[in-house]
């Protein structure tokens, strides 16, 4: 369940983002997550970007440490955990920021994927060249450096048989009304503690994201009053999204 592996490569994807490869391949369903443990430093949820790697954006002490791991360093993993995506036909994979990393394994598992990707700048559009080999890629950047200048939601709707959305929650909430409820899936993120359904910390309108999700059908998400609005912080106190 919990294993400690050796880092074999630290690949810089952009100024803020690194992919950390380790010496084991994890069999998981796209969308499931791993609790990444740095002994003595902490543990946080990540979705695999490769069977043997996670992609991390530097956003605090833990992610700075994770992004700085060098070959030979240790990385602990617990998982895979949670419910992933069902098999998707001709999906449009809609990603924002580091959420794009989670779409990589889903793209490889899907037939005829297309991509709708957004970021602040071109640097944030992870795996751009690789995705272009798999299918059409539509990009929006806030500074206009690549693709449409503006938000990813401005590229919607797009034609596809199904949709998977992974990104900042406000972006996902803006996508919700623009996509068909019966063929769309969202990846919800919350502060997690146990990550196995015990503590209730990661609730989104009562659904424990760690075990009921993190992938939820849009029809369920549309019923969640908390989605796009509020989440519980480490103490349990509500904070606004």
């Amino acid at each position: 369940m919990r294993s400690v592996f050796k880092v074999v490569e630290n690949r810089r994807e952009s100024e803020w983002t690194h992919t950390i490869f380790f010496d084991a391949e994890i069999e998981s369903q796209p969308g499931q997550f791993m609790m990444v443990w740095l002994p003595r430093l902490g543990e946080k949820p990540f979705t695999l970007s490769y069977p043997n790697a996670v992609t991390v954006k530097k956003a605090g002490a833990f992610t700075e440490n994770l992004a700085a791991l060098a070959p030979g360093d240790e990385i602990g993993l617990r998982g895979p955990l949670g419910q992933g995506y069902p098999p998707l036909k001709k999906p449009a994979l809609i990603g924002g920021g580091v959420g794009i990393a989670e779409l990589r394994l889903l793209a490889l598992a899907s037939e005829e994927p297309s991509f709708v990707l957004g970021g602040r700048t071109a640097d944030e559009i992870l795996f751009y060249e690789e995705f272009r080999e798999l299918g059409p890629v539509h990009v929006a950047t806030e500074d206009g450096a690549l693709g449409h200048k503006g938000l990813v939601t401005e590229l919607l709707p797009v034609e596809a048989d199904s949709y998977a959305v992974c990104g900042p929650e406000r972006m996902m909430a803006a996508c919700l009304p623009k996509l068909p409820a019966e063929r769309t899936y969202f990846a919800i993120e919350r502060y997690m503690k146990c990550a196995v359904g015990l503590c209730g910390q990661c609730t989104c309108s009562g659904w424990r994201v760690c075990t009921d999700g993190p992938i939820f059908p849009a029809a369920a998400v549309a019923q969640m009053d908390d989605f796009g609005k509020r989440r519980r912080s480490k103490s349990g106190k509500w904070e606004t999204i």
Partner: protein
Amino acid sequence: MIPLPRIDPPLINASGILSYPEVFTAFESAGACLGGYVTKSVGPREKPGNDNPVVVYPPDGAVLNSLALPTQSAEDWERDLEEIKLKKAKLIVSVYGGDSLEFAEVTGRMSRFSDAIEVNLGCPNKEPGEQTIMESIGQNPALSAEVIERVRGETDKPVIAKLSPNSDYLAVAESCMNAGADALGCGNTLGPGLAVDIRSRAAILAGTTGGISGPALKPVNLRMTYEAYARFRCPIVAYGGIETWEDAVEYILAGASVLGIGTAFMRKSTHEAAALTREIWEGIQEYLDGEPMSAIIGAAHRSAEGGGSHA
């Protein structure tokens, strides 16, 4: 003594499991067979609890947790509980504090929302630099009694004293019953224990140690239930490793009238967890075969004395 509310079916979640009112309503809508829900322990002021990892489970060893009582403030809990919309299930609010005055303060705020107050006397977890409730209060009969007495003064709801298996629990229970407790909770997690990762040579839990739950806890809290029932013949809410209807029946025969489920929900979606509660309750009912549950509560004692219908 104030009787416990009718918790029907007599199954609840354990405090610190599921934790929040919106999770309870999701379980209730999913058809969970839980007649009551227990909040995570409400403290007087906001506290984040330990950093991650906060949980270890097999094959690392027994199930350990070191959440260390994270809580929003009692005022924020009041706002949350005002919103709760349970259709049928009862709500039990678990309370804690650093001393008897804090326990009383939280009870005063929580009483109006609750059908019973559970007093957490035995949490074995702490943030670095703290003392655990088990160490500061739960092992001390006089201090535990002081807590119960002050809590009793703040509520007209039944008061459940939840004991630590790491205490002279019969002595603590006796002083709690004398101080006005209506029921006993048997009991909190055991230990705490330790898990070490041999590759990184580090303690796994950020809080170093953690309370032991799950199957490893069952024989310990079953014994506590048995001994507490033998001594007090009072209502007992039992917790510890209840995963099947057989586990539940063992606790009932030992003396429990309400069964708490915790670790058994591990890795289960809401629908899977709800199905587990239905299986447990159906199993208990089949075992009862038409008899009321009250007829077999504590039956293991009667058979030890050579009588009773299940002897």
